[in-house]
């Protein structure tokens, strides 16, 4: 089989993995090497479904010996099978990189015999890529469930980011849908990656030379980038503005998985609610210092009595709301209990989670833009990480009015209900809490997005 045909099969087989970012590590050019890694990441194209393509995301092989219920590559499926030669895939990565198609490689695989066999083949591909073709760009490698710790250690020295996918939000669902996967081994891979990174931090921080270099780099402590409001007029990217403490060591000095680890959860193939999923994500961020938890809306592809009916709509909006909630936890300082509760465990599909929170906490508003803290501004619907910092920078020059907020490129459509400038509220915003609630919620529910979703799901529009 020639590479063109294999590529079609193995790209299609990998398309259900949601992660495609190249962020988290910055590496400059180096003599004799090909490429760089830029911390903010870069999307090179967008697929027909609008998802960003940053990396060459393929499986090493789709000849999987496992039989996960939802997966098109499962051993009992009758699909075409293909497997890359390690060098073939390494060459392909460099060729695509030099043409500016990608930032690097996202390498995953079906289980080719055993997890260790598969990982060894992946390691060989990455070894050729790094050591023979001198590729200095980004590599994301998936940890195959059940891989031995020695191989995780080796692959972590060749890849920038590792991901051990939990796949399903509970061990009972995992055992039900993926009987060959052991939930404990997935968690233990995550734990190993976390401990190796921690150990590397400790080593680097204990070295006096590294310590001095780091102190020079972060003179303003751990929060660093998040409360920095310099150059707000030109900043385009809010990705660095997370409120989570930054990595003290930074990616440049690390040798093991410098861009950290991530995981993925499939949404809608099993019965867990949003409350369960958000609590699980929060605990994964905390426990294993994950860089990202990716959500992948379940797409019914296989007929299996353990799965929802084939006609079930893709829970695209649910995936979107979960991403918004995840963003609120990482960039806005929310915790899951503020967004969902055991009594009300589902995110509202019509209202974004921040707006839904604000409408039930109107006693916290209006916020005075000329005095509010960063955290308070971040809670205002319609004000994002960039907007909040622009406000803080601009109010150093003068007290701000609603006109000034427009000049700062802030969209006031929603924010106007929740803020005041020098004690004055927007003239078009009602004072009564009930009126605010109905007006804002009505506007949100009438959005094109919500209308399309209802039509797609065959619901009658109520407005």
């Amino acid at each position, binding site marked *: 089989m020639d590479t063109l045909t294999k590529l079609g099969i193995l790209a299609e087989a990998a398309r259900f993995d949601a992660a495609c970012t190249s962020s988290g590590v910055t590496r*400059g*050019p180096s003599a*004799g090497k090909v490429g760089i890694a830029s911390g903010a990441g870069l999307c090179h194209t967008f697929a027909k*479904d609008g998802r960003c393509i940053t990396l060459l995301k393929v499986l090493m092989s789709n000849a999987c010996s496992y039989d996960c219920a939802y997966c098109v590559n499962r051993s009992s499926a009758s699909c075409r099978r293909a497997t890359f030669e390690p060098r073939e895939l390494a060459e392909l990565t460099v060729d695509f990189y030099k043409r500016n198609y990608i930032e690097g490689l996202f390498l995953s695989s079906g289980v080719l015999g055993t997890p260790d066999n598969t990982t060894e083949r992946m390691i060989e591909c990455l070894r050729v890529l790094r050591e023979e073709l001198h590729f200095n760009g980004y590599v994301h490698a998936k940890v195959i469930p059940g891989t031995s710790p020695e191989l995780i250690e080796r692959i972590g020295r060749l890849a920038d980011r590792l991901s051990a996918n939990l796949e399903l939000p509970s061990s009972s669902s995992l055992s039900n849908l993926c009987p060959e996967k052991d939930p404990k081994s997935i968690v233990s891979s995550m734990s190993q990656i976390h401990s190796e990174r921690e150990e590397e931090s400790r080593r680097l921080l204990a070295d006096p030379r590294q310590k001095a270099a780091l102190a020079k780099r972060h003179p303003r402590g751990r929060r660093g980038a998040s409360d920095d409001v310099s150059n707000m*007029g030109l900043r385009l990217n809010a990705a660095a503005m997370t409120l989570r403490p930054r990595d003290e060591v930074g990616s440049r000095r690390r040798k093991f998985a410098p861009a950290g680890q991530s995981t993925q959860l499939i949404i809608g193939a099993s019965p867990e609610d949003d409350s369960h999923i958000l609590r699980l994500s929060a605990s994964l961020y905390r426990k294993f210092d994950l860089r990202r938890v990716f959500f992948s809306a379940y797409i019914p592809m296989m007929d299996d009595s353990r799965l929802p009916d084939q006609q079930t709509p893709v829970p695209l909006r649910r995936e979107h709301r979960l991403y918004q909630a995840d963003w609120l936890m990482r960039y806005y300082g929310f915790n899951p209990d503020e967004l969902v509760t055991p009594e009300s465990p589902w995110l509202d599909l019509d209202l974004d989670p921040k707006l839904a929170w604000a409408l039930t906490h109107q006693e916290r508003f209006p916020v005075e833009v000329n005095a509010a803290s960063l955290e308070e501004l971040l809670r205002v619907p319609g004000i994002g990480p960039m907007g909040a910092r622009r406000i803080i920078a601009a109010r150093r020059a003068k007290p701000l009015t609603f006109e*000034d907020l427009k*000049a*700062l490129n802030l969209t006031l459509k929603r924010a106007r209900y929740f803020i005041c400038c020098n004690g004055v509220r927007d003239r078009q915003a009602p004072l009564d809490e009930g009126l605010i609630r109905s007006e804002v919620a009505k506007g949100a529910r009438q959005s*094109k997005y919500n209308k399309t979703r209802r039509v797609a799901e065959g619901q009658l529009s109520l407005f």
Partner: protein
Amino acid sequence: MRVALCCNGSLESILSGVGIGYLAHAPARKLRLCKAEAAQPALDERLVNVPAASLDGTVAFATRVYRGFERRVSAGCPLKRSGSCPAHCKGSCATRLALAAANDDDGVPQAIHEYVRLGFQVGPQIRNMLSDATVARLDTLARYTLTECEHTRQFARFSLLEDGSYFCSFRPKADTIPLTGGYFAARMRDEKFCMVDPAHLVVALHEPGQRRCSVSRVDPDLCGELASASTQTAEGEKYVHAMWRRFYDSVGLDGRDASQRGYGLRAHWMPKRFWGGLVELSPEALDPGAVVPAAYSPTGRGHTKAAVPHLGQGTAESQT
């Protein structure tokens, strides 16, 4: 009588114009800067060209204005460490002038003129005046250029030519090639490559091992000649293009398009004006050509093939 000072749109020419206004003690309200090709005098305005000094003279004069402005607005900045600006700020107090100048908008010269005057007047305070109309206007122009630079990094596509070098032709809506040449030089440090922007008549050339590209303005004929070089691609390049197209076509998911979302996410993130230059959307890339490069041939040697089966054709193949 007011004066409209015509410049050629380059940062050097604009800053020279600003400097001339200063030296002439012309009050801001009496002086307007404009691009020569878009100059339209108002009833009470006289058009005057920025004097055509030698190139060196213009650059030296503009540099004086630029340095003076930089000193004035960055005075006492608490973010500077041991006298230099941190990486994320990178001298943006003044480099935003260059970003704004790279914008194609006809109002750029006057926006820079007003901003520089304001900077000299208020000093470092300008850094926080984000909601001021003059500052907001300049930032909008500069931000647009930054976005176009990002688009250049995202959507420029290179092809391998017969002589082993890489070639790219890209049409941004701002003069981004001089601003992004360094990025591509870092990315492809050991490659020889050429980037052409036929809209701004700019060429960036990179020699293996160099940290930077050499950037030149060229006339339309030379630009056209260079662009035609892109047709002389290396043997097997069609196959690489076809692989990229195949990859692209294989990764999209059904059920997540505009009919589900209410809007097309792809066109939102990837403006349609770039689509014509994207290999992944090019119908030509459906044809892999007759030559398979050695690295991708099942025999390990480059070969001329009879036909490449497409997905769904032929018999089911076992694993390799």
